[in-house]
């Protein structure tokens, strides 16, 4: 079922070029396809929704089709049936002219299903073509354009930053729960690319075969080459203003985020097919528009579509009265005919779907009975496609082809718990109703590590839905739960349990009131009391894996083991849970527990002996060795390049990068008053004429040793030479300085004939200021001590001065020299 993007792009392109070439009013009917081929409704009735959401078997597929297609907009039904169906409403058209180009509207009217596979709108102009089609459709186009005014030209230039931002957002925040991904998951994680181990393939997967053999389709996505960034931004920012039934929920996108996604979607289509963005000239003809308005009312458009805010709806006119839903008898005619006649609404139904509708209509009276609470839940989860992200009672959850798009933000190693929205099995027994209402109607933000967002379903009656969840899932209403004990002592004990030291170390993984967790950034516990029912909290803590199989949360009261905290609440797990609850119930006012890491709380003080500390140091590298002296001068040596990369004074370093949390983070070591030696490995191999050898050996770090005073001596090898480098502090009245002592000798068994030099410093201007004394850029003064056989020279090349010690052009066997750095 996989179709390559290239293939589709070529097809669309070819047709679109045809459109431009003929430039006729009707001309070619463009295919603006983005879905899969075939009907928008899958064959398998369990997966009958327009974009193949899961419908639990408790739901009657015929009824769901009648509701989703809004049959009762024409075939009137009594209130109780209408209430039960809660039919999906068509988009508001008040601004439609502004949102789509006339070309697009024209193509759409001619056959919506051709433009957008999966479109719910019936084709009302079935079997009409040629001049007749033009005569009927064109006034409608003018009328629609008059709603909101003529759309602006689609953009053809795009801000690349916006496009990239939109690309990430589109694939990450949850759009691809329902809609097709446009790119492989590698867009979210570039590291997937180089090793080629992306198990989902480089091609986006638009549909997949689910275990029971049916093919799941994706929510239709029209071409965006016929709209504008501004109008698409508005739609994404507030989808319900246009689509009143909330099937497309608000993803809580900011205006900026909406614009980025809009830019990405439009850029993608326009770049693929630049011609599609070129709109034919159009002049709005008020006469045609007026005639279109009459047709709009007569054709039945007004039966389904409203105008939305700030515009009066047009009332339907019924030149051909529709039979009421209860009185429908000829169930194989009209819309339900295998091939609907001209001017009949053609929904492009499959035979299986027609059968399902007929079956329901045969017992249509049973629709007068309200749905049970459980059915209402199933129906809502199905209609809103909650199942795209959530599982409930074994149904739903991200399909395999989409799993890779569900990601964790940052480096949180939380496994599937960190990337997949939580299961909804038993959710009414877990969450407090007020929290459910809040979450469903406004979205949720309690899982900051989860990239996918919980949308805001603003159109749902969330009070009623939350109540139903509670009724179906919970043992009793939340108000009937026995009150949880609270006392200052319980809260204090809970605080102790939450902390490290003498507690259960909840803060090892959880943040509390914004605190930084020591390890994993699991959910902040501050909202526990607001979110969770106390009975669920207790049951969960006593056996987490029972309620969330596979969870990383361990069981803190394993059976067969004595309570680890016998002195807290008499070692009674239930009362210890009371204590945790009491503590967390203080919400924003709770005092943080013991062990919450303090920023920068790991200062290493150098007291007596020098401190050698190996860690990741910013600007030095992953093999850095910091050496601190009590004289308050310190340095960082890179054991990879075997050279000092920074020397500073004052505070030594803070080990929090290595010691806080999981460690392994970079330490910002190089402190105040910093100076840097030559920015290269200082030893150089010379050839007999005194020039640098073409190839210089890589230095090899060999370790370090501590002398009698525990002063470190660094050891490394350069070619045939072994080098000992000892940094030592110099105590001076104003500030400490540094002496560096080098001892170079041949490695055992080596007989070198090469020459050797040492680059002391590089600078813009190096001046000799005394005997063997040099001032580098007015910042550092070097005093050199070296053997008589060696020479110190300032050379100028490559626009810089270089202070170099030459030990001889050949046969250097050993050298001992010292540098004093004063700054």
């Amino acid at each position: 079922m996989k179709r390559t993007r290239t293939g589709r792009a070529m097809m669309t392109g070819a047709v679109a070029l045809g459109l431009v070439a003929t430039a006729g009013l009707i001309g070619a009917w463009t295919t603006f396809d983005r879905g899969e081929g075939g009907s928008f409704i899958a064959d398998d009735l369990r997966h009958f929704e327009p974009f193949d959401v899961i419908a639990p078997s408790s739901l009657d597929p015929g009824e769901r089709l009648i509701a989703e297609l809004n049959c009762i907009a024409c075939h009137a039904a009594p209130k109780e049936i209408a209430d039960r169906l809660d039919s999906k409403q068509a988009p508001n058209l008040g601004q439609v002219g502004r949102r789509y180009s006339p070309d697009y509207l024209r193509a759409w009217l001619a056959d919506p299903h051709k433009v957008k596979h999966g479109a719910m709108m019936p084709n009302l102009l079935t079997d009409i073509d040629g001049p007749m089609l033009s005569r009927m459709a064109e006034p409608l186009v003018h009328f629609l354009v008059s709603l909101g005014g003529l759309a602006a030209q689609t953009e053809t230039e795009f801000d690349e930053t916006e496009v990239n931002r939109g690309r990430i957002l589109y694939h990450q925040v949850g759009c691809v729960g329902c809609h097709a991904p446009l790119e492989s998951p590698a867009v979210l994680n570039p590291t997937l690319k180089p090793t080629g181990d992306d198990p989902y393939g480089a091609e986006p997967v638009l549909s997949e075969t689910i275990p029971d053999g049916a093919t799941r389709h994706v929510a239709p996505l029209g071409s965006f080459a016929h709209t504008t960034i501004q109008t698409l931004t508005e739609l994404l920012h507030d989808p319900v203003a246009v689509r009143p039934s909330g099937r497309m929920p608000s993803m809580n996108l900011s205006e900026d985020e909406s614009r980025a996604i809009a830019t990405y979607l439009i850029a993608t289509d326009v770049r693929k097919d630049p011609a599609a963005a070129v709109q034919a000239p159009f002049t709005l003809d008020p006469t045609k528009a007026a005639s279109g308005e009459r047709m709009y009312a007569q054709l039945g458009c007004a039966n389904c579509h409203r105008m939305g805010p700030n515009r009066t709806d047009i009332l339907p006119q019924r030149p051909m009265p529709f039979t009421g839903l209860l009185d429908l008898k000829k169930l194989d005619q009209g819309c339900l005919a295998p091939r609907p006649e001209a001017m009949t609404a053609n929904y492009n139904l499959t035979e299986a779907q027609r059968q399902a509708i007929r079956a329901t209509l045969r017992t249509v009276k049973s629709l007068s009975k309200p749905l049970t609470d459980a059915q209402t839940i199933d129906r809502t989860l199905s209609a809103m496609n909650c199942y795209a992200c959530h599982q409930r009672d074994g149904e739903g959850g991200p399909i395999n082809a989409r799993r890779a798009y569900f990601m964790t933000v940052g480096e949180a190693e939380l496994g599937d718990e960190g990337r997949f929205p939580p299961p909804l099995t038993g959710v009414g027994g877990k969450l407090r109703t007020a929290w459910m209402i809040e979450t469903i109607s406004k979205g949720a933000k309690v899982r900051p590590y989860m990239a996918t967002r919980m949308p805001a379903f603003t159109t749902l009656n969330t009070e009623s839905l939350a109540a139903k969840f509670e009724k179906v899932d919970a043992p009793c209403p939340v108000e009937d739960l026995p009150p949880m004990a609270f006392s200052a002592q319980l809260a204090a004990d809970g605080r102790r349990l939450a902390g490290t030291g003498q507690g259960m170390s909840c803060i090892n993984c959880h943040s509390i009131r914004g605190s930084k967790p020591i390890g994993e950034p699991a959910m902040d516990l501050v909202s526990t009391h607001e979110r969770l029912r106390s009975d669920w909290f207790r049951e969960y803590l006593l056996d987490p894996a029972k309620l969330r199989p596979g969870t990383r949360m361990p069981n803190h009261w394993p059976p067969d083991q004595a309570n680890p905290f016998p002195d807290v609440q008499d070692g009674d797990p239930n009362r210890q849970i009371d204590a945790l609850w009491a503590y967390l119930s203080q919400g924003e006012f709770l005092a943080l527990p013991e062990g919450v890491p303090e920023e920068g709380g790991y200062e290493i003080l150098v007291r007596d002996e020098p401190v050698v500390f190996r860690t990741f140091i910013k600007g030095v590298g992953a093999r850095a060795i910091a050496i601190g002296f009590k004289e308050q001068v310190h340095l960082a040596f890179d054991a990879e390049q075997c050279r000092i990369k920074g020397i500073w004074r004052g505070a030594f370093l803070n080990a929090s990068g290595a010691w806080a949390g999981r460690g392994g983070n970079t330490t910002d070591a190089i402190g105040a008053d910093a100076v840097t030696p030559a920015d290269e490995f200082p030893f150089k191999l010379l050839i007999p004429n005194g020039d640098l050898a073409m190839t210089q050996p890589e230095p090899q770090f060999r370790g370090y040793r501590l002398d009698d005073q525990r002063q470190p001596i660094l050891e490394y090898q350069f070619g045939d030479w072994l080098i000992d480098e000892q940094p030592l502090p110099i105590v001076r009245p104003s500030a400490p300085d540094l002496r560096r002592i080098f001892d170079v000798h041949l490695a055992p068994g080596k007989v070198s004939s090469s020459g050797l030099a040492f680059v002391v410093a590089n600078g813009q201007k190096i001046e000799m200021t005394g005997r063997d004394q040099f001032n580098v850029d007015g910042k550092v003064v070097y005093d050199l001590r070296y053997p008589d056989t060696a020479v110190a020279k300032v050379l100028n090349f490559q626009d810089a001065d270089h202070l170099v010690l030459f030990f001889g052009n050949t046969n250097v066997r050993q050298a001992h020299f010292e540098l004093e750095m004063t700054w």
Partner: protein
Amino acid sequence: MVRTMKQSAIALTMLLLGAAATASAMQQPLGPKLDYVKKATREETRKATIAKYLPAGLDYGPWWIIGPFENAGSGELDRIYPPEQDGFKPDAVYKGKRGVEVKWEKTDFLDNSAMDLHVFGANPADDVFNEDVACYLYREIRIDEPATLKVRMGSDDGMKVWHNGRVIVHADELRGWDADQHVVDLHLEAGVNTILAKVINHQVGYNFSFGYDNPLDPMLDAKLEYQLDLDFPRSPEDLYYRMLTIPVPQDIVLEVGGMDLLEDGRPAISTRRGEVWLVNNAYGDPPFDATFTRFASGLHEPLGLAVRDGAMYLVQRSELTRLVDEDGDDRADRFDTVYNGWGVSGNYHEFAFGPKFDRDGNMWVTLNLGFCGGLGKSIVPWRGWALKITTDGQMTPVCGGMRSPNGIGMNAAGDMFYVDNQGDWVGTCPLVHMEPGDFCGHPGGNQWYDLPDVPGDNPGKPYAGPNGPVPKHEAARKMPSLKLPAVWFPYGRMGQSSADVVCDMTGGSFGPFGEQIFVGDQTTASIARVYLEKVDGKYQGACFPFRSGFDCGVNRMCWGTDGSMFVGMTNRGWGSLGRKPYGLQRLVWTGKTPFEILEMKAQPDGFDLVFTEPVDPQTAGNAASYTMKSFTYFYHEPYGSPEIRNQQLAILGAVVSPDRMRVHLLVNGLREGFVHELSAPGVTSANGAPLLHSEAYYTLNHIPDTPVASAAP
């Protein structure tokens, strides 16, 4: 309810085995002796013992309370009411707030906990009598001789406290309660001392507390806990394997990363903070005279340590280092880089583990993948690999495909194993036999197979199955070098994050599990036991619960000279069960043999179970005493795997051997590649004891074609 039943089962087991007898094992600790008072329960014993450390004749009288008096919040703490003038007169009656009559009432308020003072009016929710009020609390403290007690007081809201009529606390505040708001040295006079406290409340919380510290210093307290553990075991496991907690001085953060014994028997411990500590007197029982010597510091997260030929080898993030103490002062003075050829990108997750020596004197090192976007990646050389390095720095790559290989160990036959951690491409933690050219399953480091002189071929992209992911044993049919774990540790039940592998070569000093493997677990603070056998030339076998309830996540283990096991712990960054954030314990066999399944061996038609003690033929020979199910795991990129393709297996028969040490289980429906989970709660020993652990998990990679002879136990 379940809990209660389990606890009584523990009690019964303890009774059967004569728990109290172990107390005689105690030797007198050094330092001050503990004045121990044994009572019927652990808590009573603790209280009675602590009481011995209080000043002579110290007796805290009950708290009395009187109120409410009118008090409009802050600023009125000093407004005087009669009890303040009259002192404690139990029969006096005064006019309180709104003219109600108030008199002193005796309470059952407890010290060391926050007293809830919402006690006035008809019900505690009665705001009039519990808000904007003041009350007085009174108690007497008797003592024989003058003494100084440190007490901790707190209140919500403000309070004023008098000791023998002298103000010792004055806090005119609106505040929440905390136990330590006022820490005061109370100079008690001989005889009766009086404490009067006035506590005001503006709104909501209304509390007072009066607490005093445990009079036992940390060392005496540790001694008390030691004795309590002997007399009142925390778990039935204590009867066979005792945990001795070696006290760690407060200024040492002993987050154990590596551990081995020096030639003189002292444990050397490297820590995550980069220090190496030598533990002197580590073998004491009780362990209170242990002391710590800092051998080295400033190393980069050394997560392994091995001692050989007078030198200490340890792995830092960036290199394998030899530490030498040349002058014999117990402090390292040489830090030689033995090998630093693996890459370090700076990614936090690039941990390095090892070394462990093999029989030929090679050091084995395993290298974690880095984490990029939550998935393991090998962006620098040898990440995800096991390397073999000689003491002079010659490196040979062995095998790749590792994710987070926190533990290496050698079995009795000299073969090398490692444990991995659940995550991407690792369905649950496994124990894996490492052989040259193996691919252990994580493709993150596959590119290094392409380097010259590397054993094995690049296994390529993992086999993904025609319809979604498949179990590892099915993928292995398409990927010849894909190594199947010898043992899977089912997530949750057998730990959640494996750490370290040690083999019992103690010759029986550690109990009946000679030559078996022990694997630590960081999250669940426990140790699992593993029995391995070779079927079709490959290792496979079973894991069993062994010991749980350590103080913190188990990260390293090593054998003491006496055949006890040192257990090093840490949980920073990866939460664990237990009471402490790090520490060192020693696990000592008590000499009693637990009734356990010693070995579980695969047979063509089921399994042979070998027990540590003769079984009761009645229960052990009853097929209904056993249940078995089997399941396996997905081999796929997402984190971990659910247990898939679950199947309940029928036990067709259970045949007890003539010596009653073995049972042959006939099982219907064995499946290769599946974990076979055995539960045998009904089996008892010849003297009626239940199994200490009735679960076993056999990873059946291969079903033997012919019956496997049982080795003599």
